[in-house]
């Protein structure tokens, strides 16, 4: 198990280095630079050249990559070329908001997907399963902006239950305003629930026919106890890995939701930075997102590995104190 963890850890670090290089050089390769975007249409050529020099856009790319990576390791991600704000400062304020949003959504998805996935998987092929399947397929097929717009129309415009946009007072964090979190979290949950439920269901179906579960059934286990104590532990590993992939993707990828609800997360900031050729910001936010995605996947792998060990029949019996 320790070797497994170490191997995964080393892979993650190597992956991180590779990603940092890909990130840096692909943003370098974009046509145009911040000088053009910042200067505006009425700038003279010398004003443009001055801005380019000030932003350090004239050094060779490899030099800048090494400097950038070295600085990044010490926590210095450079400054935004738009207004000179440190990237790390932006990251600190935006990242926490994204973690709150995605954390709540993933927690809700985990609970709901487990309940629905177990219910459907244990009744595979029956009416309940078919109903849940059509609901999940519909959820997967609905574009995110449609779900989000629908929520605004129904829950904000018509019912007046929740604010349509997030307007956090200066200095406040998102968790201090739960009413403004409801709609964005719900939109993310509806967007991810379909896939997650189907993942859990597939794992449950795979496990339900296994000898271990058969044994449990023959021992007279059924219903919630069978699902909770026997099926879930065996089916959890692929479920956790699926959720980890989803959480990693949502962290920077909830752009539609962030935009429509004006939620100050890291995704909309990244999109803005790409639009305005704010290279330092793109690289800094990208690096942080890549790092946290790898971390989440790494933790997901470790948990799944642990569960796999536990759920292997031999290990199970050893854990129970049995002899083989």
């Amino acid at each position, binding site marked *: 198990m320790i070797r497994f963890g170490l191997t995964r850890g080393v892979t993650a670090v190597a992956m991180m280095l590779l990603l940092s290089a890909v990130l840096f050089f692909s943003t370098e390769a974009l*046509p*145009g*630079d911040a*000088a*053009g*975007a*910042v*200067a*505006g*249409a*009425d*700038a*003279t050529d010398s*004003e*443009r050249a*001055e*801005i380019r020099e*000030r932003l350090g856009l004239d050094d060779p790319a490899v030099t800048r990559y090494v400097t950038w990576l070295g600085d990044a390791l010490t926590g210095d991600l450079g400054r*935004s070329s*738009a*207004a*000179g*704000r440190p990237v790390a400062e*932006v990251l600190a*304020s*935006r990242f926490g908001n994204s973690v709150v949003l995605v954390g709540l959504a993933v927690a809700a998805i985990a609970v709901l997907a487990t309940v629905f996935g177990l219910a459907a998987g244990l009744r595979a092929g029956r009416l309940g399963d078919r109903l849940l399947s059509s609901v999940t397929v519909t959820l997967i097929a609905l574009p995110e902006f449609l779900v989000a717009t629908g929520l*605004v129309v129904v829950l*904000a*415009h018509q019912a*007046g*239950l*929740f*604010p*349509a*946009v997030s*307007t*956090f*007072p*200066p*200095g406040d964090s998102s968790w201090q305003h*739960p*009413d403004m979190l409801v709609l964005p979290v719900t939109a993310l949950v509806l967007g991810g629930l379909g896939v997650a439920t189907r993942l859990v269901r597939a794992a449950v179906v795979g496990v339900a026919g296994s000898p271990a579960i058969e044994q449990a059934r023959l021992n007279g286990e059924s219903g919630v106890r069978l699902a909770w104590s026997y099926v879930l532990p065996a089916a959890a590993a692929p479920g956790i890995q699926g959720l980890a992939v989803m959480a990693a993707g949502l962290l920077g990828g909830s752009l539609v939701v962030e*935009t*429509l*609800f*004006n939620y*100050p997360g890291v995704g*909309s*900031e990244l999109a*803005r*930075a*790409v*639009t*305005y*050729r*704010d290279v330092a*910001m793109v690289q800094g936010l990208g690096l942080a997102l890549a790092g946290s995605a790898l971390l989440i996947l790494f933790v997901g792998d470790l948990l799944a590995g642990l569960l796999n060990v536990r759920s292997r029949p031999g290990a199970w019996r050893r854990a129970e104190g049995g002899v083989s």
Partner: protein
Amino acid sequence: MSNFSRRAFLGFGALTAAGVSGVLTACSSSGAGGDAAGATLRAAFAGGGSSETLNYFVGPTALDFVRARLVHAPLGAIDAKQPDGVSYGILESIEISDDLTSYTLRLRDSVTFTDGSPVTAADLLHSLRAPDELEGLPFTRLVGRNFDLAAARRLDARTLRLPTAQPIADGRLLLCQSMLVIKDGTTEFTPKTPSCGPFVIEAFEPGQQTVLRRNPDYFGDDVHLDEIHLLSVGDAEARANALREGQADFVSGVSPFNARELAKADGLTVSAGEPPYVSNLRFEMNLSHEPFKDERVRRAFRLAVDRQAIVDTVYFGRAEIGNDVPALGFPSYDTGLEQRRHDPEEAKSLLREAGHEGMPIELTAGPELTGMVETATLVVENLRAVGVKASLKELPAGQLFADYEAYQRLPFAAGYNPSAPFEANHTPGTFPDIDKLVATARSAPAEGDRTAASHKAQGLLWEKGNEIVPVFVPTVDAHTDKVSGVRSLQFPDLSAAELASA
């Protein structure tokens, strides 16, 4: 009512702090009568995410300037109705020497900064030099390009004499368009930086919100609000939602479609900036592209465009028709020029004459100004109707000007200029005869000569220029009916806004 049910639904036992202050506001305003003393205006702008900054010289978004104009007193504002063409703010007057080589700026008496120090000519001079010294964005450096600021001289504590770089008559417009006063020595901008505008910064979170509180020592007497909350809401749809849901009283930058929908809603009003506060949407025909060297091709392209259809279908009427000449609404704009017709037949025959029938052309555009892509789409259709094999290359947001050298090489490209006087913003180098006329229009001693030269230059641009200016686009705002007193300048000026009590 919806607020109440929302709170009840969430089961919040205690009133939030905002709720309490709302109740207090209601009490005080009912005591004061109609004028809602203690009112807070919530205004939403697109903002710029985390790139928003209090340093308005480098802040790239409209919100940065809107905020700065509420905190730092402006020298004045362009106002065609005034005898000088400008209305004064912190300045009392701008006198111009007869030979147009020196300007004398005089400050109002006994104006102070928030730290108690008086506003002096030294502060004024620093304010004018700061855009260059602090490496401001090009649009903030208009004054530095036209005046010799190094040679400026203080005549007394309130008076400053500025020599011009070349003789110019339009210096008042340049000085009053967007210059604000900051304290001498200011190089960094924080909420604590001394200022002399109508409001002071209570709190600032880039990309989220700015809380402004009334400056009790402000020299002007037309400030009615106690607080302004500037909300950053990036998406136009989300801004419209914020207004509909009562989360904002005023929103700036409303899309044409949303403007039409919001105008129909009860209790909401849509307003648009009026000339000269409109941006010119232009399509530039690159003269190094062979067919455009022929004047007849350029005229054909201009005649092919159906301008009224653009105003009607792209902007739902909320735009001004253009006549291929910039700076609509400024005093020197030649209203006597014949309005360009939509004449596809004439366009066809001109193209035939020039031997460029069925010429291929690609128009490049991006969503940099409201309706730019939609207008470009119509222009391409118009050109196809006269036999040109036109196609549209649509770039994603932020790309059009990102590589400016590449942009300048495009054969046919969309662009825009924010509201600015024609003569001072004319880029020389394309037509020497027009350049000469523009120089005269800026520097001739007699006003009649200047106007004549300007009109002649505009006439030549109309005749043979390489820009199609089909439409002038205002910034469209929307607000609840309780809001009044917002001035639609280049950007909305909220300093004199009022909020009626419910």
